[in-house]
């Protein structure tokens, strides 16, 4: 993304009457660490993709790529919201449930038209996001416990809507909603284009608006941000609302793609989203992060999943093992890089 380029840490040997006068070596290693932190995932993605396309004939085919892109789209939308939350130093564990709930609500609402099918999940999931935000920001409860409760509550709501999970709502063929989820434009699925548009908007909001500055400020140093006039509580409420809205939207689009509101989806999706965000270079401690990185993180996860599927002989449970191991490796690398840059 070009927007992040302007912020690349440029260290000039300028005359610094007040700088601590760091040695050139440490500045260089700082820059290198920053570079790895920001673009390391991209490099790994490129390498893995290249290796995979040489190893498996079916990897670099148009079908497979288009498939991967579409299946990445939904996770990517969820990860976009998660990026905002994590940059404020929070975490949102409710997104998996909200994703499932959004899908069910969209499928249920589709009988009243596409508008209802899209607005209903946004309204409900957005509202749960608002509640999360209020509890975190106003009541100052720990984000992980609040959103863990919301994850449970949203699951409960989903069961209540679907007659304890017994009923599956379908989306009629040929409706605008189905077209939104299943149709393609210029060879790529519509959800992919929607995702790309959301990420461009997300990047602009994060780097180029006051709200975005507040997101970074709240995550970087909450007390200082409050003293500097940043609306801390409002910012937090907004990011959790945004996360809820995006999870609901992703669920709705996914339901449109599948043509039904599948109730058992979204289990463990919060973990995938968090992994993607962290892999993308966003600090879990808050204050530093990139929307573009999260997109790369999602793609990396999906490519690895695809490779495991290509191997074929491997059970799908290996995906979980690999994901867990990968997350561990990434956080170890991040912690190490972060310590070099003295962020922690």
């Amino acid at each position, binding site marked *: 993304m070009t927007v992040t380029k302007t912020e690349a840490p440029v260290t000039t040997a300028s005359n610094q009457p007040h700088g601590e006068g760091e040695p050139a070596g440490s500045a260089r290693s700082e820059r290198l660490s920053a570079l790895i932190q920001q673009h390391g995932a991209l490099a790994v993605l490129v390498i893995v993709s290249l290796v995979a396309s040489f190893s498996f004939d079916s990897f670099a085919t148009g079908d497979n790529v288009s498939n991967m892109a579409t299946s990445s789209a939904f996770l990517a939308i969820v990860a976009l919201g998660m990026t905002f939350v994590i940059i404020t130093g929070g975490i949102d564990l409710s997104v998996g449930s909200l994703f499932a709930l959004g899908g069910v609500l969209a499928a249920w609402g589709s009988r009243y038209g596409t508008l209802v099918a899209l607005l209903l999940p946004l309204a409900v999931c957005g509202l749960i996001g608002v509640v999360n935000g209020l509890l975190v920001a106003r009541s100052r409860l720990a984000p992980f416990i609040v959103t863990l409760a*919301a994850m*449970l*509550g949203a699951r409960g709501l989903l069961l209540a809507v679907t007659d304890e999970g017994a009923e599956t709502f379908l989306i009629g063929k040929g409706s605008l909603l189905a077209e939104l989820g299943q149709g393609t434009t210029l060879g790529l699925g519509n959800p992919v284009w929607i995702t790309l548009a959301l990420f461009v908007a997300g990047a602009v909001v994060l780097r180029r608006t006051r709200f975005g500055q507040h997101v970074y400020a709240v995550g970087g140093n909450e007390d200082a941000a409050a003293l500097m006039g940043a609306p801390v509580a409002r910012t937090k409420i907004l990011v959790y609302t945004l996360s809820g809205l995006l999870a609901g939207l992703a669920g709705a689009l996914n339901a449109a793609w599948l043509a039904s509101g599948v109730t058992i989806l979204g289990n*463990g999706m919060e973990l995938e989203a968090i992994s993607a965000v962290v892999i993308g270079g966003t600090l*879990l401690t808050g204050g530093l992060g990139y929307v573009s990185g999260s997109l790369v993180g999602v793609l990396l996860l999906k490519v690895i999943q695809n490779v495991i599927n290509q191997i074929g002989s491997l059970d799908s*449970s290996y995906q*979980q093992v690999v994901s*867990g191991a990968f997350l561990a490796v990434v956080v170890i690398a991040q912690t190490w890089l972060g310590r070099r840059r003295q962020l922690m």
Partner: protein
Amino acid sequence: MAEATTLRTAPLDRARVLQWLQTYGVYAGVAALLVVNVVITPNFLTAENFRTQAVQVAPVIIVALGMALVIGTEGVDLSVGAVMALAASVTALYLGYGLLPALLAVALFAAAVGLANGALVALVGVQPIVATLALMVGGRGIALVLLPQLEDLRNPALASLGSGDVLGVPYLILIAAVLALLVAFTVRRTTFGRQLLAIGDSRPAAQLAGLPVRRVLIIVYVVCALLAAVAGVLATARLQASDPTSLGNLMELSAITAVVVGGTPLTGGRVNIAGTVAGAVLIQLLTATLIKHDLPPSWTQIAQAVVIVAAVYAARGRGRR
């Protein structure tokens, strides 16, 4: 002056009420639920019912004990459910060699997960949520790789562990009670317990005071994983089947809830074992009440979510000093 005094006493009283609620609220809640159930639930006051409730809550209590220790160090362990599933798989795999070898194998696997968690947190310096998240995903993955689907277990020793009793008290309950006493004693009376609390309260200060911070943290995560494994084995024994797909699902949530409802602050530095046991009982009674009155699972989950938020809300003053 009179005005000043009333102004001063009012918030003090509220603070005192809040303090009382934080310390004894969980016991009051258990008592209230008991009374309500005696009145509205038929056949509540029977030994059989109490036995059932206790057997159901025992694994949660055991997991929550380990969770309480981890939370006391200002950490959290999300991998406990995965460890339970892993324990179920490994039990099924090694039961052919006899119960004892199977238990040893389970302990080894669990200790390895705990060690990985502890090493990530204590040596690498990863946030506990993320470190244990990795093991939560990976741990269940391993459990499923080892044993892809539910498997019935026929082993008399295992069966008696799950359903046997001493003088009418099931082994499950006895084991949970003994472990609770052991953990409470460790927290109160051992150097390890004191060091754990100091580390949870202020890790840099504990480090500079020469405490073995890394060792204590690693041991805490290993103990938590071992306790989760015990719960996993007991649950498997009761089911007489190994079910790595669903065993321990959302257990991390139940355990954290029990700990928090029981008055242990998430900010570390304090551990309340009696409260943790009462917290687990409270959640169990609440769920049982809803189920006995034919409320669907959806309502149970929503109610649980509300209780968690209410408990954390009530406890929030404590974290601030």
